[in-house]
């Protein structure tokens, strides 16, 4: 600034410096506008729930407007386990195929279909699940319908992360396997899959977080039940945490509000734990395997 003034270009430089300062101030405000909602949501939801929180909600079933959330905790567990098995199988297998058996510049149609499927609104999944599985197939509100619909919803995430993780494994590994005379399947299974496992696990964890947080696909496929889950294949409605938030938040009852807040607290805690676990998986594996390519480069000075 002082230098510019002596150079005699003061007005222009001052304006440009001002422009610079305005830009970065605006960016700082933007940053605050991103951080503030995160803190506000987490603190707000936790604060509202903690005031009335009691651990008995984890061990009792709902009674009228009050009672616990045990049915939903169990139901969420069942649904998520089902999604993990079904979507995990389909997603990982699809990702392995896209990474290992199609060239990066081919298979665009399959890859594109998978990515576009991830953009389909969740209510469309839910409604198609309702008209096809629940009504047309006469499954009724059933846990299987919920699992199928939710699995279709999260498969693209798992496929994508699996493919990226496998593509990050150096080609040397595959060449080494070939040089040893291993078949392509054996190379994949013994050499390539192992370094990609953390990436795949991260994808599964994030898919899990999405599956736990979804409401719309389940409302009309899995129904809701305030009793413990039955493992019947059809006509077996099941509880899940998001339903409690969705239904109880505007009931004219303080007990119902508490239950909605408690369910939201559990949801947000689960999601936070899953995100932290996913981060830990990535961090530890990046730290202890120097031969893996580091995907996120350090910020160059």
């Amino acid at each position: 600034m002082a230098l510019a003034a002596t150079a005699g270009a003061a007005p222009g430089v001052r304006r440009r410096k001002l422009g610079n300062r305005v830009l970065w101030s605006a960016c700082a405000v933007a940053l605050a506008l991103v951080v503030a909602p995160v803190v506000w949501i987490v603190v707000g939801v936790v604060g509202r729930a903690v005031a009335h929180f009691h651990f008995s909600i984890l061990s009792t079933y709902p009674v009228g407007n009050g009672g616990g959330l045990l049915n939903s905790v169990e139901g969420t567990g069942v649904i998520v386990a089902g999604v993990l098995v079904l979507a995990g199988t389909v997603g990982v297998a699809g990702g392995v195929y896209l990474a290992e058996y199609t060239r990066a510049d081919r298979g665009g149609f399959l890859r594109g279909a998978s990515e576009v499927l991830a953009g389909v609104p969740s209510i469309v999944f839910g409604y198609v699940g309702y008209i096809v599985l629940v009504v047309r197939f006469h499954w009724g509100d059933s846990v299987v319908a919920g699992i199928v619909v939710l699995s279709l919803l999260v498969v693209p995430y798992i496929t994508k992360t699996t493919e990226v993780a496998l593509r990050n494994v150096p080609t040397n590994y595959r060449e080494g396997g070939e040089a040893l005379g291993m078949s392509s399947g054996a190379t994949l299974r013994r050499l390539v899959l192992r370094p990609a496992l953390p990436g795949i696990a991260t994808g599964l964890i994030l898919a899990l977080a999405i599956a736990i947080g979804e409401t719309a696909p389940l409302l009309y496929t899995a129904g809701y039940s305030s009793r413990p889950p039955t493992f019947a294949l059809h006509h077996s409605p099941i509880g899940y945490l998001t339903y409690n938030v969705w239904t109880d938040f505007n009931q004219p009852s303080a007990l119902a509000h508490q239950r909605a807040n408690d369910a939201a607290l559990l949801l947000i805690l689960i999601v936070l734990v899953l995100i932290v676990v996913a981060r830990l998986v990535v961090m530890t594996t990046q730290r202890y395997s120097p031969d893996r390519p580091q995907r996120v480069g350090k910020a160059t000075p």
Partner: protein
Amino acid sequence: MLSTGRTKVGGEEEAAAGSSPRAATAPAAVHAPAGSSASAPSSGGGGAGPGAPPAGAGGGAGRPPARRRGRSSWWRAERLLPHGLHVFAFIPLVALALLLGALVWKALPAIRYNGTGFFTRSVWSLGNLYVLPVKTGGVAHPPEAAYGALSLVEGTLVSSAIAIVLAVPVAVGTALVVVEKLPPRLSTGIGFCLEVLAGVPSVVFGLWGWFTLGPFLAHDIAPIWADHIFNHLPDVPVLRFFRGPTGGGTGLFVAGVVLAIMILPIVAATSRDLLRQVPRGTVEGALALGMTDAESLRAVNMPWVRSGVIGATVLGLGRALGETIAVAMVGGSLVAAPVHSLYPDFGTIAATIVNTLDSALTDVSGLATDTLAELALVLLVITLVANVGARLLVRRVATTALPVGRGI
């Protein structure tokens, strides 16, 4: 085809079984003399003692091939592996086709009954459900049933537009700070914040919007401009949109803000990743020419990432268009209320499907549920256009792939 595959598998297993004993015995045969010759000079009498471990080691060396042989018969099926995996890779494509097909099949009666008026009317009436359904053009329907989704399409587009207008500058600004100014540790923290924002379930956003954000915006924020500025300006079409009253905590503006927060992580994370790819040399060249940070951003960084950011924005738009639960909770869920102002309750396509399915089931002719299928079809087409457009745009010009869905 299958039988030849099986015989081939069997044949190769025999070949493997035939070859592996040779492989197992050969190292042992080589190893045993070596062990005995090494142990012989050290102690003649105790030769058997030190000689035993090499024999054991030889057996150990022989064991893995044996184990491998046992498993290999099982894993010879891996010849079929690519074909099996191929099936799984096709599932998303099949699912997409099924979604479209099922919706078209279910919506056909409604499409015939509602006609093109579906997109030009704002009306939602199940008709007289207390009398027998009548038939018009082969479609059974309750008398006086009338559907028009104009206000829902409007509500969907306007709320998403509000979200985009609010979210994109904030997201890009955040990405700029994170890439250009913050130390790595802090930018990791911001990345964590974005992941949390992407991971928070939409019901939790809805709950927060209903109890906390909605009342705050309606009572403390929106009146700042609605009551103090726009209510004093002339009552002309565009300005009228911003006039109060600002409502009680639900409605278009609240839903728009909640949607904006929900799509922030997609746009911000993608912009950040794109900005990191801008070649350092070009930026430094701009700085060396005497440009300020802001000028080099405008001259170098932004042109480099523009199309990618636009792609991410369209992807966020797709997310906002399809968001269901949060909007159903804070939007007020009106079905046939044209959007005339920024604040009143409204409805989107997705929220209407989830809110009215229960009541639609009371229509025994089935036209109400068919119409919801038509709505879902409209929503699916809109979001497909947004998604495919975003991906085509980005694939043509940028190297970074867009994140899928929620962007985590």
